[in-house]
């Protein structure tokens, strides 16, 4: 209990406290920080930067996690469910490798993969080499799309594994009864597979939404740029608190992120509990 208090509860409470001060890394405020009340929060909610970050983070979560990972993971799990043998194991291993390799390594691989032709000293990225002369500078011209694709690639394995377990739990006779009755694949999905996988789908959405929302890897890829096009909330916090030194402001945004996470979690758990 003492350890939990020291290492978990104290920093959390301290962050909330910091958010109410004008504490900075450098300068006079570093020595003599002042209690400023809700000023940081007011700045965050009225200034454009925070809301912009919140908005693009939302887009990032919806497209890469909810639509990308969840739908692709489900599709893969469904297609692979009846496969046996080396092809399945090979494909599964490949997808899982994407998930277990450390983020910094993966980020480096993707930087190399999508590198544009930016000068004679830099090697052209793998994708542009494959595509030939088009030469799009992916990270500069389509940063959001690149990161969304990257995150789908990286996170789909988890959804696939979770849904795979869920589909295994549906007795084959459920689907066979439907097939004998003449149901199409779509009708089986709608009437049996999705209602039976409800718990798995919601748990998965909860986890991958939160993970993606708090994901810091985009910083390694784009540093939040170009401009602030990929300045997702965790990146924004890092830049404000540690690069700009505004620890008090960063702590306030962290607290807001915490609240958003809680709301999202409660929302999913609420639906989950409404299971019939």
């Amino acid at each position, binding site marked *: 209990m003492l350890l939990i208090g020291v290492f978990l509860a104290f920093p959390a409470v301290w962050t909330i406290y910091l958010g109410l001060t004008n504490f900075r890394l450098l300068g006079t405020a570093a020595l003599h920080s002042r209690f400023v009340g809700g000023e940081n929060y007011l700045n965050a909610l009225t200034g454009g930067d925070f809301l912009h970050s919140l908005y693009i983070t939302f887009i990032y979560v919806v497209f890469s996690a909810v639509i990308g990972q969840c739908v692709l993971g489900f599709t893969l799990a469904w297609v692979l469910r009846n496969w046996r043998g080396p092809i399945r194991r090979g494909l599964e291993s490949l997808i899982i490798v994407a998930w277990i390799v450390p983020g910094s390594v993966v980020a480096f691989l993707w930087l190399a993969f999508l590198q544009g032709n930016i000068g004679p000293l830099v090697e052209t990225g793998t994708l542009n080499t494959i595509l030939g002369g088009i030469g799009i500078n992916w990270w500069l011209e389509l940063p959001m799309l690149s990161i969304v694709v990257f995150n789908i690639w990286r996170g789909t394995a988890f959804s696939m594994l979770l849904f795979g377990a869920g589909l295994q739990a549906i*007795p084959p*006779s*459920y689907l*066979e*009864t*439907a*097939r*004998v*009755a*003449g*149901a199409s694949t779509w*009708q089986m999905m709608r*009437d*049996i597979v999705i*209602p*039976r996988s409800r718990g798995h789908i919601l748990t998965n959405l909860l986890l991958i939404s939160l993970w993606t929302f708090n994901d810091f890897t985009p910083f390694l890829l784009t540093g939040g740029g170009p401009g602030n096009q990929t300045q997702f909330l965790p990146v924004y916090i890092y830049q404000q608190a540690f690069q700009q030194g505004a620890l008090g402001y960063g702590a306030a945004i962290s607290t807001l992120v915490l609240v958003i996470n809680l709301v999202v979690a409660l929302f999913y758990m609420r639906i989950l509990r409404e299971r*019939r």
Partner: protein
Amino acid sequence: MAGITVAKLTKVFPNGVRALQEVDLQIADGSFFALLGPSGCGKTTLLRTLAGLEAPTHGTISIGDRDVTRLPPGARKVAMVFQDYALYPHMDVADNIAYPLKIQRMGRGPRRQRAAETGAHLGLEGMMDRRPAQLSGGQQQRVALARAVASHPHVFLFDEPLSNLDARLRMEARTFLKRLHSDLTTTTVYVTHDQAEALAVADRMAVMDRGTIRQIGSPVEVFHRPANLFVASFIGNTPMNLIDAHVVGGLLRIGDDTVPLPPNTADAVREGEPVVLGARPEYVALRPGPVAGGVRSRVVITEHLGTSILVDLESAAGPLQAVVAEDEAPPLGSEVWLVVALARALLYAKESGELVGAALGGPPTQRTTAASTATLPGAAS
């Protein structure tokens, strides 16, 4: 309404298992047909191939006058009831019963109405709004039946529908199925590994072993004249005694004992030929002293079966069994002579395992055990 014709049906699974080998089968329109066999004999594969859930490697299937071999399951107008019933836990009883109707695009009102009517016919009144988990095993089984009935299929396919019920309910459900079939007269194919169930419900049956059909006939025919040793050993509550013997001088030589040939078999066997004498434990008698035509044996174990007693014997020809009346059990360890009721005995060629001669097997005219039980009520041992 439709009969089923299966021609040269072969199913080889990708792992090389030959589940069905050139199966030929005719199932008459309106009949209650049982597929019986030990696990792994191919009976379930045959049923699933009829349903279209498995594609045959070779051969054809016709339902009515349609060749359905390449049709998807939904186009065959069949309904299948699975061993686990496959009721959808997230739907109420009415929606479960009406699910095939929903797929046929019947509106919600009419289909729930039809579900309620079918359910009522099957004794499910007042349960339409419940979830499957709130029903007993027997009720769940009837919901699964109602779902099959409600879509008015041409053929019912039942995959061991009673095996998840306890013994008492199974008897009730068996009678229920039989009555349902006589009401609807829909062609029914019924897979079971329980020979007693097959004998009880079917009007025709096929006994399968390792992907082939070993005998087709009415339950009476299959029970009284098993066509080969496999069927003989598989059918019957207590396994048939299959006694190794040699034909010596127009008689059967069993160890040191000599037993006459069953009627109508003398012309079908050669002198010296190894044969197997088949006699159900119910169709033998035990004598306390040496008798002509008796097989000398010793009592090892007796098991109480209620109104009768199963006696396990040891003889020169191997282990034997006899069923005697409840008050006629010989003492353990005593020597007895087993006398085969020859009119009901069967003879098989040892080598081919096939039935030889025209042994009658025939239905029993009068059971000696039943007679003695009747005259000595309550004379317990």
